[in-house]
């Protein structure tokens, strides 16, 4: 799974310095996991995302952002709680979800928010 930095985030997801309003840069919908190494619930999410990355390969991009390493990105999204999961559909606004979601909730959100079956 790719770890995003400020630069790659701006290329692949949203260039928040150039655009005031949300403008998705990706060619397919994506899920972004804001996490940190010290966070137990974040580690619960990691294997679920690995599963999903395989199951939705070619349909959904799954990225991770280390909030300790990428503090500017975390601040840009007002992250105050991890894990936080950002669901970015094509052509619609993104939705943020807090806490370690079970796999079932990811599948539902991929269908409902990302419009991917």
């Amino acid at each position, binding site marked *: 799974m790719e770890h995003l930095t400020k630069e790659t985030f701006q290329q692949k997801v949203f260039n928040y310095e150039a655009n005031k309003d949300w403008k998705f840069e990706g060619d397919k919908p994506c899920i972004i996991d804001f996490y*940190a190494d010290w966070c*137990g*619930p974040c580690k619960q999410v990691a294997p679920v995302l690995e599963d999903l990355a395989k199951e939705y390969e070619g349909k959904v991009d799954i990225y991770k952002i280390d*909030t300790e390493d990428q503090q500017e990105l975390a601040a840009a999204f007002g992250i*105050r*709680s991890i894990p936080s999961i950002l669901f970015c559909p094509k052509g619609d606004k993104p939705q*943020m979800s807090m806490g*370690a979601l*079970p796999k079932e909730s990811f599948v539902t959100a991929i269908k409902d928010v990302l419009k991917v079956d």
Partner: protein
Amino acid sequence: MNTKHCDAIVLGSGAAGLTAGIYLARANLKTLIVNEGSIGGQMVLTHAVANYPGVLETSGRDISLIMKKQAKDFGCDIESNVELTKFDLISKKKMIEIDDDEVFTSDVVILATGGKPRKLGAKNEDKFKGFGISYCATCDGDFYTDKDVIVVGGGNSALEEAVSLTKWVRSITIVHQFDNFQATDHAIKQAEKNDKISFILESEITEYLGERQVEGVKIQNQKTGETRELKTDGVFVYVGYIPNTDRFKDVIDLSEREEILTDKNMLTNINGVFAAGDVREKKIRQITTAVSDGTIAALNAIEYLQK
């Protein structure tokens, strides 16, 4: 649909569920642990565990990983991140269905589904969850470096997590609804002697204030009814737990607080169905007591199977 039979099914993989799995598998019983979340339950929310006998200070997550390894090494199967879509606990042969496509039957079931943090119930709580309201100091403490925060609650979790938050934050105000704490003397003293911690007692938060993030709270004094506003950068809530029993309430006898009622052998009102850990009615909720429950439930389940 594919059906597999096990000797025992354990629902939940916190301290109680994993311990039950260890004992059952070690008795050579075909054991399946089913877990809708991930391994460790509420243990993983605990920053530092210093009072688990035999283990020097560690984290809740590290303990849970060792317990998982022990269970697996003894031959326990563990299904994590699945959804329990159907179950039958009443029949002699118990049945569970997961993810709508796999069915397992067993002779005994141990319910160790734990609990989840109780919400405060103050106005705007859902709006600010994750944006200034947190239930996990170890996860989110770092985001409050040099900030002023509130910790709500008066039990061990509230006071111990407040002390652990002092590593990051500038100040902590502990807001508690009563005039005394339920925490142990040791936890109270540790909090009281910390210069960063102050207390507002006999008071409750009634509303969270702010635009995008929490910027303050309304606090009401329980005695005088007087309400005032307090500026804060974040609120950590530790006001107890709600047992995960909602789906069992039609078949399993519950207490008024919706905890599962058991006898001293951890047996519920249904033959062959045991309960262990935070999900059952009891006063003390610690990793040690969950481990104890899991042991007692498993050994009595083994005895039940032998009859």
